[in-house]
């Protein structure tokens, strides 16, 4: 895989990528444009992207003042961190055990994992709510994180990646005197960075953006994660405040985007298991 000069294949590739990128970007163009428009300009018969009258300041200040946005963002960071850390701590060893240790019932466990993946949170929300309410921990970070601490998706994702890892690597580690946990930490994790990064991205994205669960367990705005802030700009009955809504969306999305930009470096330094023959 070498750097080659310009040729048709490359040009074609760039063209396809760029067209795709345009399609993917289109909604954001409108989103940004809307976030800068006064309300009367948002819907009109002309497709102008640049507003006649700038209202960006107004919209964004609404996004920050109408709700305690900074507090919400902070909550989001805390909850996502708790969830992510625990999820990884649990999922890595589980996946390793399923992938590389032979024990009876492994297949059944994998089936159980699949089942866990399928259950929509909407279905289990009520029982979990009752349990949390019984424990008197509603309106806490714990309640926000509780149902997600074990990520079946994570176990499943890691499982797939670990199975591709050469057995001899793990065998070598065993002979070098590593415990199974040691193997996970010292051999598996360093070589599974792309998978872990991918998972982290997904986990953070999913829980940062989750609107459903926080509504169930949080009744104090002080504990609410960012998406709950967005509902302050929505009014199903009477039409949303689109400008402010888009501004708030930009604000809520930004941290994730930054996080992704940081995380994707991990992909650039992709690993290849070259210490092995065959």
């Amino acid at each position, binding site marked *: 895989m070498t750097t080659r000069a310009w040729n048709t294949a490359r040009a074609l590739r760039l063209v396809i990528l760029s067209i795709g990128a345009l399609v993917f970007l289109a909604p954001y163009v409108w989103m940004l444009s809307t976030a800068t428009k006064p309300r009367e300009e948002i819907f009109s018969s002309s497709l102008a992207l640049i507003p006649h009258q700038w209202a960006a300041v107004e919209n964004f200040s609404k996004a920050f003042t109408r709700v305690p946005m900074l507090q919400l963002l902070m909550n989001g960071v805390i909850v996502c961190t708790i969830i992510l850390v625990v999820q990884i701590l649990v999922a890595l060893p589980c996946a390793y055990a399923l992938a590389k240790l032979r024990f009876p019932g492994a297949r059944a466990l994998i089936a159980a994992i699949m089942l866990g993946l399928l259950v929509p949170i909407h279905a289990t929300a009520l029982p979990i709510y009752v349990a949390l309410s019984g424990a008197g921990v509603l309106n806490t970070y714990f309640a926000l994180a509780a149902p997600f601490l074990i990520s079946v998706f994570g176990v499943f994702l890691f499982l797939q990646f670990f199975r591709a890892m050469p057995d001899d690597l793990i*065998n*070598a580690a*065993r002979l070098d005197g590593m415990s199974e946990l040691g193997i996970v930490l010292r051999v598996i994790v*360093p070589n599974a960075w792309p998978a872990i990064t991918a998972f982290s991205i997904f986990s953070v994205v999913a829980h940062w953006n989750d609107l459903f669960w926080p509504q169930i367990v949080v009744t104090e705005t002080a504990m609410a994660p960012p998406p709950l802030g967005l509902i302050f700009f929505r009014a199903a009955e009477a039409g949303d405040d689109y400008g402010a809504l888009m501004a708030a969306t930009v604000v809520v999305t930004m941290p994730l985007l930054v996080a992704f930009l940081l995380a994707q470096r991990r992909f650039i330094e992709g*690993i290849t298991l070259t210490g092995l023959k065959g």
Partner: protein
Amino acid sequence: MSGLALRGISKAYGDSHILRDVTIEAEPGEFVALVGPSGCGKTTLLRIAAGLDHPDHGSVWLGERDMTAMPPSERDIAMVFQSYALYPHLTAGQNIAVPLAMRDLTVWQRLPGIGSFVPGQRKTRTVIQSRVLETARSLKIDHLLGRKPGQMSGGQRQRVALGRALVRSPAAFLMDEPLSNLDANLRVHTRAEIVELHRLAGVTTLYVTHDQAEALSMADRVAVMMGGRLLQFDTPEGVYRNPQHIEVARFIGSPQINLLTGEVDAAHGVRIGGRLFAEGVEAVPGSAVTVGIRPEALKLGGPGQAGLGASVRRIEFLGSETLVFIELAGSGGALVAKLAPDAATGFGQGQAITIAAASEDVLVFGPQGMRQSVSLPMRKAANG
């Protein structure tokens, strides 16, 4: 110091039987070489010894302990993998240091980041570092310690894998063709290092090699395997001079032993194509035997001398020695003789010659390939 015993090991993958009832008992401190053709089950046997595979039958013993059910990490065995199995994310130095770190550092000291604040960590690390450096030096890879496996050549990786095993003093060493990717000089050097280490530490070693010369020169005893069976387990001289099976004779020695179909007459004379080849051979009389003569044991003479008639087909120069390829008159059988360069000067391509062998150099194998030997009375007296 404890011996390593593999007793009655069998192993099959589905229908294909990889190992059949293999028993190898290495004495404490013994150096056992495991040789055999590609695919005969050497690696599998080593993996079973290490606990990475489980035998279908049989048991593995380290000293007096039955280890068959013990997990690999508790066996205290160091192994060099044929496929290296280096940690791709660690540098050569870190790769080699792993077993020491695992042994000498506590769980807390090993923790990344935090570990460095745990007391004693720094000192142990220094000790480990110097041990790693020492091992690396002896393998001539000390200048590579900062490289990752992906940035090293094949032979360099192999030496790192070797270093990772040699850095410890385990209860036993298992080495799977650890020198296969090294050039001759380095190989001689590294071989010497291994032998030296073995002499000093006296750790029981199971050493797989495809190089029978290496096996003969390094090992206390050599185990010759074939098709999952152990054919002979003997001293180097034993397997070379006194092979118990035609396959062992064929496998050991380079160039390969010359094999001819012939018969042993009642007077213990060996006949090839009816003509007498050697007299007074320690063999059971019988027809349809296979007669083996090592290339260096073949005596070439001029046309008039005693022995079988033959002609020179080709002469091959190999530096320190010369191979003479010979075609037997009549049968067309092909043989090879190994001569010192000087001794070969007399022969030219196409030349007619005779071949003969001393009776004690002639090995006779029966139809099943088993060695046929009896002690002749006079010999016995001579030897005794």
